[in-house]
């Protein structure tokens, strides 16, 4: 879209107007963010009328800054509606119907509607495009049957971005359609999925004869993969612990834990070996941070290099090693798990101390090299898309999806 000319001063003025009309310290979340949307300050790079002003994305920072200068109550998109705001809104804007844009974007931003993403299936992990959930057209409706998994927020979501197979006779990437699923529809059952910590960060979603109106489709029937790409491009593979400032993040906690270590826990020579190991991890974290910085600089300069693609792989593998090292710093105490394994929804309150954080992260980090693309898949991407190495012989392309062998 054409970018409008508007100065930083204009923008700051508009934000102050917002604050005059609805100040976050005085009105509630929905009112304030509703107003913010109406004034085009939700996503300034979105078109006017849809929460934006057609500006450059970079200018959103000015809005945040001006609000921060004038208000105590600050809202975090990631806390309010991470998937809706992070992935739902851009997808709706690019592929949604008029009705979706006019009705849903505002409620996404205010947080009235929480969104979730229904892509992964038990039989389709690394191979998402192999998914088996069926959507059969019957008149004005699609009838959907299947199971989705690893669905964060499904239990509190009003809308789900659903990828399902509408044509099993087409090749895998061509037979999918992308639906907007009302999570309150009959036949939608959400079950908590408990993980290594006992907590249920994610859900399983069972879909039984779920009816979806044909006009809830995004993009064209059979072109769901194209829409899914838009969603995935906006996915934040936000693995915890990336250091924003030097010595911050996971490595910062490890360093502090080491400095606070219990005296006498290690023999002197063992401490030296640990020191070498911690220095190694510090170096790698620092270099990941600097490499991300180079990536940003390169993007700004308009020539994005390979630096970006390495981050996910490096971060995932490093994070696991950092927390393994933290457990070694705790020594025998690492055998004690104060938090316990009660089956519950995650609670951050229980992880306020370094000790609790380290023990939780040691377990949680195991998923870093699986979620949002396994390290094996990331290495394929680096090898093929960045280095240009040839792909493997594929038996699952250019053949009807239904003829491809797959796990139950």
């Amino acid at each position, binding site marked *: 879209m054409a970018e409008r000319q508007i100065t930083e001063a204009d923008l700051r003025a508009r934000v102050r107007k917002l604050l005059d009309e609805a100040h976050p310290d005085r009105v509630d979340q929905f009112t304030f963010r509703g107003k913010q949307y109406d004034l085009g300050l939700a996503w300034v790079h979105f078109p006017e009328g849809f929460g934006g002003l057609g500006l450059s994305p970079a200018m959103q920072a000015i809005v945040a800054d001006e609000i921060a200068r004038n208000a105590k109550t600050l809202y975090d998109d990631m806390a309010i509606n991470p998937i809706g705001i992070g992935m739902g809104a851009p997808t709706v804007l690019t592929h949604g119907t008029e009705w979706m844009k006019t009705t849903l974007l505002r409620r996404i931003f205010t947080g009235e509607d929480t969104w979730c993403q229904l892509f992964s299936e038990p039989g389709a992990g690394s191979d998402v495009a192999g998914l088996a959930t069926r959507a059969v057209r019957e008149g004005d409706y699609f009838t959907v049957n299947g199971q989705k998994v690893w669905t964060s927020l499904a239990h509190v979501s009003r809308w789900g971005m659903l990828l399902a197979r509408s044509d099993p006779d087409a090749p895998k990437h061509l037979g999918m359609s992308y639906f907007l699923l009302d999570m309150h529809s009959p036949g939608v059952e959400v079950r908590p999925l408990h993980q290594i910590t006992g907590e249920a960060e994610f859900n399983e979603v069972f879909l039984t004869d779920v009816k979806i109106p044909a006009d809830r489709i995004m993009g064209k029937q059979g072109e769901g993969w194209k829409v899914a790409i838009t969603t995935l491009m906006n996915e934040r593979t936000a693995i915890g612990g990336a250091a924003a400032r030097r010595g911050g993040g996971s490595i910062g906690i490890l360093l502090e834990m080491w400095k606070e270590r219990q005296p006498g826990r290690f023999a002197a020579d063992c401490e030296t070996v640990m020191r070498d190991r911690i220095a190694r991890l510090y170096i790698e974290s620092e270099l990941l941070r600097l490499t991300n910085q180079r990536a940003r600089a390169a993007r700004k300069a308009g020539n994005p290099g390979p630096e970006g693609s390495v981050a996910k792989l490096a971060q995932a593998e490093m994070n696991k090693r950092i927390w393994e090292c933290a457990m070694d710093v705790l020594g025998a105490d690492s055998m004690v798990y104060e938090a316990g394994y009660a089956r519950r929804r995650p609670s951050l309150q229980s992880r306020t101390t370094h000790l609790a954080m380290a023990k939780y992260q040691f377990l949680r980090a195991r998923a870093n090299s*699986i979620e949002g693309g396994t390290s094996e898949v990331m290495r394929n991407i680096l090898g093929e898309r960045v280095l240009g190495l040839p792909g493997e012989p594929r038996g699952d392309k250019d053949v009807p999806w239904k003829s491809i062998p797959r796990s139950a």
Partner: protein
Amino acid sequence: MDFSFTPEHEELRQTVRRFLEKESTEQIVRKLMETESGYDPKTWARMASELSLVGLAVPEQFGGAGYGPVELAIVFEEMGRVLFCGPYLSTAVLAAGAFMHAAEAAPRAKLLGEIAAGRAIATLALAEASGRWDLESIAMRARRDGARWRLEGVKDYVLDGNLAGIVLVAARADDGLALFLVEGGAAGFERNPLPALDLTRKLARLSFANTPAERISGAGDCAPALERVIGQAIAMLAAEQAGGAQRCLEMSVEYAKTRLQFGRPIGSFQAIKHKCADLLVETEFARSAAYNAAFCAAGGDDAELAQAAHIAKSYCSEAYFHAAADNIQIHGGMGFTWEHPAHLYFKRARASSVIFGDPVAHRLKLAAALGA
């Protein structure tokens, strides 16, 4: 050193495996790990009587089976495969070993039989707040009080310390390190179960406030005897770790053969195949390390045992952790769920790597022993 196991050994392995396939299913493990005592007394009784596993390495004169560390290691390897829940390491190895190597004739005669018969759960309390198992770190003092002794202080990370009826405590007397017996109900004796990372093995913190105790080690320093006991316990733990690592590799391979992605079994991708191949090397090395330690324990040369223990504890700890971690990775999201057993092995592997000292500590002790 000749490594060959005899047909009798194979038979023992099969017997134990068949027993555990019934009595230590995943379902049973998950049930027991949620209990506080963490074991099934009925199963324990059968292990003592029917299979005489509890007294397997106890001399026959004390009602044991009269076998040694090699046979015991076979049992531990099998237990490791199925995450057996029960006070076996504490009772059958640590406590029984302490009675055999560090105790005087009278208490030995009185209590070793009780252990072998399965009538008593026992443990040996070594580590303290520092969380180190090397005997030099034992600071707890014992004070003579007429014919008896009194203990003051805290023992931490005590295996099955919450349920043991017989608690043996290593503490410092005027004539060196000595071994003391504390009865369950003794005055000033308090047990605090620790919430464990690895639910399949129970730990407790034991506090002693002027607690009366009976000295069971003879006159003089019993450190050398305790070193032997710890060396043997390490050999057994290493066998358990090797068994666990093997089971993790088997789970990975089974899954990699059947799990299809991109129209192929994931095991046909070199990324997975070569990971499994590397695990195979580590697993075989781990078995060698564990068997070697067990044969050295049987051999009776303390210096040999010490070196073999350093090797086994450092290597098997890392091999098991790698196998358990890669097993989660190879299983993908499913391996991260509570429902799948992968995490139980992962937590067992992590906790086991710390007990009796971590890999770095043992490697540096080995280096010293080699004069490097």
